[in-house]
């Protein structure tokens, strides 16, 4: 009978690095100058942009996990895909919410039918569907196989979301960092933005590792429960005892 192994705690070093990275990013975001046009609202960008970056990263890692599972049939890849998709959905939601908070004072509306916004919302719902699919399928191998197909299919949206601001010239500004020429942003602001991206990436790594560990424990527990000695079906039914004839 397989026994669930004890959970491994995250190393204190990794947690300390994550906390320090977040603190450094917060300090840099605080001391960077206000934007000439946006004013103090620009500070929302130091969380919004890293959150959007993490959404891309998380869904690419989901793709890697999905392909890895279909090729090797090892559940560690399935757990990687699942953990990364969960964290990715959270950060996509955060990016959308912060974008809306920024848009209200800047554009005058919470939501506008901009290509980037609309496609990001669609990506959010596709991966929400991915997570719902995982919850709806009980058998681990079937779940992993089906989720892997959707995890591969869903990644098509990342280039669509990223290049939407280039292909359709709409309200959302074009790429600032990931583009062929130099980043179009002031030095201190660039530092704050990069620090935010680095900090969020470290936090992402920590969260994915913890979520994978949790998924492994859940799988171990399910396997241990399944292998417990249980009464066989029909064991409660006993043969009738014949009494003495009176």
């Amino acid at each position, binding site marked *: 009978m397989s026994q669930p192994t004890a959970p491994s705690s995250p190393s204190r070093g990794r947690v300390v690095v994550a906390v320090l990275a977040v603190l450094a990013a917060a300090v840099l975001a605080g001391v960077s100058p206000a934007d000439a046009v946006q004013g103090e609202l620009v500070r929302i960008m130091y969380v919004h942009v890293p959150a959007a970056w993490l959404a891309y990263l998380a869904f690419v890692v989901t793709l890697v996990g999905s392909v890895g599972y279909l090729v090797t049939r090892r559940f560690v890849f399935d757990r990687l895909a699942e953990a990364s998709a969960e964290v990715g959905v959270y950060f996509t939601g955060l990016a959308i919410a912060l974008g809306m908070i920024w848009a209200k004072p800047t554009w005058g509306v919470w939501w506008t039918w901009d290509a980037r916004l609309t496609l990001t919302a669609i990506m959010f719902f596709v991966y929400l569907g991915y997570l719902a699919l995982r919850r*709806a399928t009980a058998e681990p191998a079937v779940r992993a196989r089906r989720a892997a197909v959707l995890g591969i299919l869903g990644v098509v949206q990342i280039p669509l979301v990223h290049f939407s601001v280039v292909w359709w010239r709409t309200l959302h500004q074009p790429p600032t960092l990931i583009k062929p020429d130099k980043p179009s942003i002031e030095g201190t602001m660039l530092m704050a933005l990069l620090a935010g991206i680095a900090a969020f990436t470290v936090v992402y790594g920590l969260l994915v590792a913890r979520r994978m560990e949790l998924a492994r424990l859940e799988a171990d527990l399910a396997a241990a429960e399944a292998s417990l000695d249980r009464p066989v079906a029909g064991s409660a039914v006993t043969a009738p005892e014949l009494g003495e004839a009176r």
Partner: protein
Amino acid sequence: MIPFRRAALAVARRELRRERRRGTVAWVTIPFGVVALLLVPLAVGTEQVLLRRIGPGLYWVVVLLFGVLVAVGDHDGRSQRDATALLGIDPVAELTGRALAATLLLLGFELATGVAAVVLYDLPVVGLPQLVVVMVLVAAGLGLLGTVAGAVAGAGPGAALVPLLVAPLAVPLLLGATQTLDGFVQGRSTISWILMMIVAVTVSAVVVVVAAAPLQEGR
């Protein structure tokens, strides 16, 4: 192993026979789509000018949302899937046949609700060749996406997920359909939108081919 084309056509015929017996599309989905077209003016207003302006968009939204129900069809139970596997039918041929049947049913759905939209919203029927191309591409794209989503979600509680899985991925089809016909009316070039739809349909077909084996294995 049964030859691919024969197997795909046999599966498509089986699906169409099932629909003929059950009549789900003819007697449930099409009437439901027409009711949706009938209800919208009660909510947004019944002015002919307004309905003529928003009618084509509403029609394609109804096709997308209700078409998903047509495209996914009835998912096989375990015993049926085991029987199909024992017959030696290639998983790609099975999904292709299902997609083919879904495409034909969707064309019927588009036609029936299209007539209702023209009548209810007083829409002019212009650019018939473009309209036919768009209808075929939307039917093929939705048919392929619905088939993959049906196989991904499986039978049982997962089946309820299909609309959530398909609707966001079908956005290129919705955009292509509305923009092509709008572009024709406005006198703009529509080739880029048609190309986008062809790309979407091709990608969906590739997904059917690539995903068929892992989705159907261990049935």
